[in-house]
């Protein structure tokens, strides 16, 4: 596929030292994929290097890409330490997945025609669904009074394996290549347990391994008349809309700074690039977990970070 140039526009801000309206030419790092997900079959001889062909961009040749999408039920993956396979025996399917020391086995009763769907999901389920909040820590940036900026961060990837049959889909496994880590925002008396991730701040979408990290497009708007420091963002699961294509997994959020100590953060259903596919969500409305004690700070997808921005 020929390389094409994508242009991203950045507003004026203090972090990205660009005048307003300046465009930064970016190299396209992947080929696009149809939104209609064709059913893929397992590679005849799964290699340990990659389950998908490498992306067609010269700068991303070194980064192997994980294949997300819908597959036949006998799909098998042997990729970067991940071993995933479904075997049929005596009329039953046996699902086996191993990554590192973590192993998942499942026996599935299904007639022919079942499909396996492998999608990036909200990174909140490994090792346990402890929290509904993802915290991304990054180096401190200053936002000018009434300024607006767009930055790109990374977020950890968790991969969900779903089984689909007769129009119904259910998750059978969630795993990750990243070491999970939790943190606490606020205090134990009033705060939330968060899934924690450290990211660098990028002015444009970084190249990442699409099975380890995704790209978060974060729009930060300072509505105050003073300089504000920001070094973390917390996103509620209901606002996590994950999109993927052949080489990138993405998410978008908007942060509206209300004062030096608080900001509203809302997840946005917007892909990083056109023609990205939307992932299946694991989120289901439920009673808040026992690891959240921030009454009044959550309205639909908007979480109010009123316990500090740094």
């Amino acid at each position: 596929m020929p390389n094409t140039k994508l242009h991203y526009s950045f507003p004026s801000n203090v972090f990205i030292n660009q005048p307003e309206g300046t465009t930064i030419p970016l190299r396209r790092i992947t080929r696009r994929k149809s939104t209609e997900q064709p059913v893929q079959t397992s590679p005849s001889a799964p290699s340990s290097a990659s389950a998908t062909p490498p992306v067609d961009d010269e700068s991303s040749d070194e980064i192997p890409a994980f294949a997300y999408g819908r597959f036949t039920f006998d799909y098998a993956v042997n990729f970067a330490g991940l071993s995933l396979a479904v075997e049929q025996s005596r009329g039953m399917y046996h699902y086996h997945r191993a990554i590192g020391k973590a192993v998942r086995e499942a026996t599935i009763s299904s007639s022919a025609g079942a499909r396996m769907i492998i999608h990036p999901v909200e990174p909140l389920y490994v090792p346990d669904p402890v929290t509904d909040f993802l915290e991304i820590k990054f180096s401190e940036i200053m936002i000018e009074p009434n300024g607006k900026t767009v930055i790109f961060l990374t977020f950890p990837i968790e991969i969900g394996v779903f089984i689909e049959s007769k129009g119904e889909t259910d998750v059978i496994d969630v795993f990750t290549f990243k070491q999970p880590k939790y943190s606490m925002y606020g205090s134990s008396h009033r705060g939330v347990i968060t899934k924690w991730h450290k990211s660098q701040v990028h002015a444009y979408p970084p190249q990442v391994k699409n099975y380890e990290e995704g790209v978060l497009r974060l729009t930060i708007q300072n509505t105050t008349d003073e300089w504000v420091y920001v070094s973390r963002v917390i996103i509620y699961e209901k606002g996590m809309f994950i999109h993927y294509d052949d080489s990138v997994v993405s998410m978008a959020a908007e942060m509206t700074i209300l004062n030096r100590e608080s900001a509203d953060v809302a997840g946005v259903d917007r892909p990083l690039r056109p023609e990205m596919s939307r992932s299946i969500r694991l989120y289901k409305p439920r009673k808040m977990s026992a690891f959240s004690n921030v009454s009044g700070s959550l309205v639909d997808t908007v979480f109010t970070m009123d316990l500090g921005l740094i």
Partner: protein
Amino acid sequence: MAEINVSGIMDSLFNGAESLSTNVENTSFLATKPFESFGIAMTYGDIIAVVVIIAATFIIAKLLSNIVRRMFSGKIDKGNLAFMEKLTRWTIYFFGFLAVSTPLGIDFSGLMVAGGIIAVAIGFASQSTLSNFISGLLLMFERPVSLGDNIAVKGTEGYVEDIGLMSTTLRTYKGVYVRVPNEAMFTSDITNYVAHIARRFDYNITIRYKDDAEKAMKIIKDTVDKHPYALKSPAPSVFVDNLGPNGSNLLVRIWAPSGYWWDAKTELLGKIVQALRAAGIVIPFDQNVVWFGHDQNKSLDRAMYGRPMQPSSSPEYLQTAGPGREQSAPENVAQVK
């Protein structure tokens, strides 16, 4: 069917209510007393009223309890929800009983005289019961504990299984059923281990004096950082807490989500010990070495290690020749002249 005396009713309209009641009672079907021969003065009207009131009471109780369940379902704990349903239902039953007492001919006015004495007697008798009930109500509103919470009360630790009208049921860690009266729950100190979203646990780890404490602290910190439930913030802290008789005492403080702190605590200590051992850092046994003079120590060293060690007069003796895990010296060594 019995006849209704219309003329009597008309008379009563002109002659007053007293006449009405008299005439109706005497002549109408509703005023007929079918069980009078058995000494029961109930009329058909009373019986119908009793049936209607009882039916209405049950229907209203059912409806209201359903409304309460729908209103609070998902908003409060199941135990509290069941309690509120029961409270609603029994409140309606109580009012139903009061309503049905009139057609049944139960006259509470007669109780008024003896009521005071009886009330006092009942009050004394049911003091603890009433206290438990009131405490249950107050606990429901104050909500110091919820179903499934991990608590300690009056020396008993366990999970809250049920919060009832009169008592709270705990399941101890050994699976034993414990019933705690609500009065005791209300008046006692309750420790709720999971009321807050995170909690801290500590380790005391002793290393030999000759081991590098800085290196040990870094190893411990790295090991803790790798565990998902050891929270990034508040950050774990590792420091030399004091200098003990057997080595440097390191204190490790770790925060974890309150529902997972036990998992973290049970997993991390073993990993820390493994990491320290892999780095050659030894956790010493308790030791107690007593020596008397230079020669005795030399002979003691020879007896223990087969050769003289450092000059015994030097405090360094304890640091370099003191028995550790690897040197397998006896725990208490004494040489008596």
